[in-house]
């Protein structure tokens, strides 16, 4: 995925300022910056949830930011997994059913036993004993692992996480970061937006966002 000269404005306010970034496969990216700097906005543009005012988003060398919404929805389903600070699990669904949500609409999984597949994903995330639990019965760390399972459901190439450890204690944060690092090592691209210092040691590339501008903060620390 490549971002070319992305600018995002709300009226006169420039939230993202002329940002170019090339996301390589198998790398762990971290974007830091103070509140209101425009991190979530950029992540949403990468994730095709938002459109830039200027600039291009390229996926497999195809300009995707101007595609109609239904094509972008398809691209999100196949290529992008989201992880949110507040997990956003469906409280009415069991853990494995939450993981199944993205699989349900994936036509290439038509004949697959998606229940077994989602249980397998949760098992790999260390939640083998928790697949039939409802989110209300899980701890914060476990919930976030279920959410990671959901993000991995359709085997996307990009994993975009907005403050994934913001609601977790240090012990759980480490666990989640280990998992994300692991995922990146399996030839996926992980982008984490965070305030947390603890992420830095896992990152391949760290960027700093300041008043809409993205600056490389240093790599391979």
């Amino acid at each position: 995925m490549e971002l070319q000269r992305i600018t995002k404005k709300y009226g006169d306010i420039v939230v993202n300022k002329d940002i170019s970034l090339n996301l390589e496969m198998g790398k762990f990216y971290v974007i830091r910056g103070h509140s209101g700097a425009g991190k979530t906005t950029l992540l949403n543009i990468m994730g095709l949830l938002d459109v830039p005012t200027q600039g291009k988003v390229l996926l497999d060398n195809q300009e995707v930011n101007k595609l109609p919404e239904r094509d972008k929805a398809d691209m999100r389903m196949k290529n992008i997994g989201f992880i949110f600070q507040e997990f956003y699990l469906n409280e009415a669904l069991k853990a494995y059913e939450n993981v199944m949500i993205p699989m349900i609409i994936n036509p290439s999984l038509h004949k697959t036993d998606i229940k077994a597949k989602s249980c397998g994903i949760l098992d790999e995330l260390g939640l083998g004993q928790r697949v039939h639990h409802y989110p209300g019965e899980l701890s914060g760390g476990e919930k976030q692992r279920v959410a990671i399972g959901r993000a991995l459901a359709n085997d996307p190439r990009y994993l975009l996480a907005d403050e994934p450890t913001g609601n977790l204690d240090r012990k759980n944060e480490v666990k989640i970061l280990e998992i994300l690092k692991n995922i990146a090592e399996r030839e996926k691209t992980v982008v984490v937006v965070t305030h947390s210092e603890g992420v830095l040691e896992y990152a391949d590339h760290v960027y700093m966002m300041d008043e809409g501008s993205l600056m490389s903060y240093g790599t391979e620390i």
Partner: protein
Amino acid sequence: MEQKYRWLLVRRNLRAKRRTWLKNMLLMLVACVLILVTGGLAYSIDLFMTDYLLGAPWLRDLRVDAFIEDKDRVLEALNGLAEENSHIKDIFEQNPGATCEVADAEKYGKMGFDMSDPWYGYIVPESDGYLDDRYLSGGRWIERGERNVGLLPEYFTMNLTGDMQDWNTRLTYVDGEKLIGERISLRYYTYRIMGDELVKDREFTYEFDVIGTYHNLKAGQDSGTVIFPDDDIREMTENVERNTEGITKDLGVHYHVMVDAVENMESVKQQLLEIARDISNARVTPVGGPGSLEILSDLLKSVGIVIGIALFVIEGLILATTFYHQIHDRTKEIGVYKAVGYRNHHIISIVSGEIMAAGIITFALSVMISGGFMLCLSMILKWKATLLLTQIQFALSGSHLLLGLVLSATVMVLGSAGGLIQALRLEAKEALVVRRK
């Protein structure tokens, strides 16, 4: 999206929101049951009336009474009318009947029958025209010139209890068929006046063979009316008249004008009233009429539908607000659907699935409840009511089932439209944003 998973999501979401859904479903259930039950009742009564009662002679019978000295004038006018009006099927003079008492009634009664009361019934001559061989239900009809034979009602009660007047819950019915071939001995009386009261004076007996039964419920009565040959009746009447001073001498004449169908009763009645106006003291009386039952069925239909629809409208408004709030509470859930690539048709299919499931469950429940109610009603009637009313076949009416279904669907669709549009408009980036202070 496979239906299997669509319904999984629908099931889980309905369960999670069961409180809200149950409240909505309950109101719709009441509205639906009301429409179904009242519609079914009206339909059953209608069916009963057209199938049973409207064919009955007593509903097509207009009686003209006049003084004996006007007999010729009345008869001439009536015959003239009958010639020009094809709706008049028959005109006959009412034969003087008599009450009778069956000796050894207890022999034919069933267990639990009150033996202390003998069987009283009317006697009708065969040529009366009120009942004819179309009403034969067993055995055979009286042949020309036959004597000392009679036809009994298919079912009959002792003591002349009219079904339409009394809800006598303790009636026991005698099966007329079982009496075919029996010889029955009947007593009839002359009367005299003592003070204000009519008391039995002299007693005569008459014996007859039961040769058949007639369908008295289709004829609209369940009393023990027996049909005898004209000659036998004449003999009995003469016997009574010979032995009575004055009181059986009737100073009036009574003509029955039989109309072909209930709907033509009113026009014939108007013509008869015109005739009666020219003859002093002549009267026209409808003997029977669907009256109260018809009004009841119309009333049931309209009241049920009005209240039912009003409830549906209220339900539509309540559903619209609750559903709107529900979608508002579900922005995160819908935001996630959108973020992971759900398209609008997926979201419509989930949300409309919930509405459909709730609607179908409610409708099915209301059909079951209404059907159960009708079943209970017919069971209670079979157990408690008189024979005539037990002939009503209670069933739900197809048109009201359709009406209930259409109304439920409409209310569901309209009630959820606002919320659904709100869900489709939602953008994931707005829905999933965390607002930090």
